[in-house]
C-alpha cells in the first residue's frame, strides 16, 4: 500500500477546511447584495448545501463520482457506497478520506453558486428539491467526466480545479433556472441595491482565502505545483480587480467597492482551471482580461432581459468559460509536467479544441438537465417553484423561514 506523506496530508486536510469555509463566505458575499428582507433566505440556501450535499456524498455521491476512476466513462459506480473500505485506503500520498472530504467541498459549493442567480424569488421547498436532484443528476456525472478520469479527461481536456465542473456547470444551471423563474417583480426598473456591502466584502475576503485551498489544494500535495497554483490564485484575482476597476471607472465614472470585490471573484473563477498549469505572468494576463470582460458581460442581462440577480452568469459562467479556454492558449508544460502546452507555448490548437469542447459539453448538459429538473419541480410542487407576488413583496425571510435578519432594539 502506498505510504501516506504527512506534509501532503496536512495540506489536503487544511485545503478541505479552507474550501468548506468558502460556502459560508459565498453566502455572505451574496447575502450582502440582496435586500435585507431576503438576506436569511440567501444564507439558508447556501448553508443548506453544506447539509444535504454532504449526506448525499457519503451515502453514494462520492462513489458515483469517483468510483471506477479512469474508466473514461460517463459515471462512476457503487464501490464506495457509504464510503466503505476507505477508512484505511490511500489516494496518492494522502488518506483516501482526505481526498473524499476535499472533493466533497467542491460538490457543496458548486450548487451553492447557483443561489446568486435565483435570488429573491425561489420557494424554499423548490430549492430543497432542486439542489438535491441537481447534485445527483448534474454534478456527479460532470465531476466524473472531468475529475475522475471520465471521458472528457481521457480526451485530454484540462481543468486543474474546476473551471468547467464548478463554474461553467453552476453558471449554466443558474441561467436555466433564471429563465424558468422569470424576473423579480420591478426588475430592472425598481432599485434593488445591496443591503450590506460590508457582508459582501467580508465574503470576498473569505472566498479569496478559501480559494487558496480550492486551487492549490487541487495539487493534492504540498509541492511546487501547489506553490505555483497558490501564487496564481494570488495574482489573477488581483489583476482582475484592477481590470474591473479600470473599465468601471471609465464607463461609470467611479471605481466601486462592489466592483473590486466582483473583479477579484471573477479572477478567482478564471484562474481555477489554469492554476496549476500556467506561469505567474500568464496569470496576470488571464486575470486582467477576465476582470474587464466579466464587467462588460453584466450588460448582457439588461440587453437580453434575463434577471440573473447577482450576476452568476457574468462572473461564474463567463469567467469559467474564459479561464477554461484561455488555458488552451497559456498552458505551459514547463510549469507542470502533468500539464500540456497551449497555443502560446508551441502546443498547437489541440488542447484549445479540447477545452472548447469540454466547455460546450458541460454547458449544454448542465443547462438542459437543470432546465428539466426545474420544469419537473414546477409540475410536481403544489405551490410551484416561485413565491407569490405578496410573498416576494414581503420578502423570503418572513414568508419562507418566519424569521427577520435584523432587529435593532432601542429600549
Amino acid at each position, binding site marked *: 500500500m502506498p505510504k501516506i506523506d504527512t506534509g501532503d496530508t496536512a495540506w489536503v486536510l487544511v485545503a478541505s477546511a479552507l474550501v468548506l469555509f468558502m460556502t459560508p463566505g459565498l453566502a455572505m458575499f451574496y447575502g450582502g447584495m440582496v435586500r435585507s428582507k431576503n438576506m436569511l433566505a440567501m444564507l439558508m440556501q447556501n448553508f443548506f448545501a453544506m447539509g444535504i450535499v454532504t449526506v448525499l456524498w457519503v451515502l453514494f455521491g462520492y462513489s458515483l463520482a469517483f468510483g471506477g476512476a479512469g474508466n473514461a466513462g460517463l459515471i462512476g459506480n457503487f464501490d464506495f457506497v457509504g464510503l466503505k473500505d476507505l477508512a484505511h485506503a490511500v489516494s496518492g500520498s494522502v488518506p483516501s478520506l482526505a481526498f473524499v472530504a476535499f472533493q466533497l467541498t467542491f460538490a457543496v459549493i458548486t450548487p451553492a453558486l447557483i443561489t446568486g442567480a435565483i435570488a429573491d424569488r425561489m420557494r424554499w421547498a423548490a430549492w430543497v428539491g432542486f439542489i438535491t436532484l441537481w447534485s445527483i443528476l448534474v454534478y456527479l456525472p460532470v465531476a466524473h467526466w472531468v475529475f475522475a478520469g471520465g471521458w472528457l479527461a481521457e480526451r485530454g481536456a484540462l481543468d486543474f480545479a474546476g473551471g468547467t465542473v464548478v463554474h461553467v456547470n453552476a453558471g449554466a444551471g443558474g441561467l436555466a433556472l433564471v429563465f424558468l423563474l422569470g424576473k423579480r417583480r420591478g426588475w430592472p426598473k425598481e432599485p434593488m441595491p445591496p443591503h450590506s456591502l460590508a457582508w459582501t466584502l467580508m465574503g470576498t475576503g473569505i472566498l479569496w482565502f478559501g480559494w487558496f485551498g480550492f486551487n492549490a489544494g487541487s495539487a493534492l500535495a504540498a509541492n511546487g505545483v501547489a506553490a505555483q497554483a497558490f501564487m496564481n490564485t494570488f495574482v489573477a484575482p488581483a489583476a482582475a480587480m484592477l481590470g474591473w476597476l479600470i473599465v468601471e471607472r471609465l464607463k461609470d465614472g467611479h471605481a466601486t467597492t*462592489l466592483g473590486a470585490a466582483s473583479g477579484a471573484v471573477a479572477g478567482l473563477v478564471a484562474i481555477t482551471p489554469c492554476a496549476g498549469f500556467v506561469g505567474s505572468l500568464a496569470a496576470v494576463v488571464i486575470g486582467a482580461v477576465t476582470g474587464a470582460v466579466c*464587467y462588460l458581460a*453584466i450588460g448582457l442581462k439588461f440587453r437580453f432581459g434575463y434577471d440573473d440577480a447577482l450576476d452568476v452568469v457574468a462572473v461564474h459562467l463567463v469567467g469559467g468559460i474564459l479561464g477554461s479556454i484561455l488555458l488552451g492558449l497559456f498552458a505551459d508544460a514547463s510549469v507542470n509536467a502533468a500539464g500540456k502546452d497551449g497555443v502560446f507555448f508551441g502546443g498547437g490548437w489541440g488542447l484549445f479544441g479540447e477545452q472548447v469542447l469540454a466547455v460546450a459539453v458541460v454547458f449544454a448538459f448542465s443547462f438542459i438537465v437543470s432546465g428539466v429538473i426545474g420544469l419537473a419541480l414546477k409540475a410536481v410542487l403544489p405551490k410551484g417553484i416561485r413565491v407569490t407576488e405578496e410573498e416576494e413583496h414581503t420578502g423570503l425571510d418572513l414568508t419562507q423561514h418566519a424569521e427577520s435578519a435584523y432587529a435593532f432594539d432601542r429600549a
Partner: protein
Amino acid sequence: MKLIVAIVKPFKVDEVKTALLELGLQGMTVSEAQGFGRQRGHSEVYRGKEYTIDFVPKSRIEVLVDDPDVPRVVDTLMEHARTGQIGDGKVWVLPLDAVYRVRTGEAGSDAL
C-alpha cells in the same frame, strides 16, 4: 400653547438644540425623516447600474412652546438651521388644544 415643527439638515440639530436651550426651552423631540424638495438627492452605481435616490436625510424637530415664545423660537430655529443652501428646510406652527406631562399629569405651560 403651540407646536412648532422644523425640518432641518441632520448635522444642524446639535446647533439648533444648543440655541433653543439658551432661549430657556426645556426640551424637544427629534425624529429622522427623508425630505423631498428642490434639493436633489444623489445617485449610486452598483455593477454598472445607476440608481437615483431623490430623498435627502432630514431631521424633524418638534417643540412645544407657550404662545408668547413662538416668534423667538421660530427665529432661533431658522437662524441656526440655516446654511443658505437649498434644502435648509421648513418650519411650521400648529395650534394645540392641550399639553400634558405624563409623569405628573400637569397640563398647559406647567407640562413643559
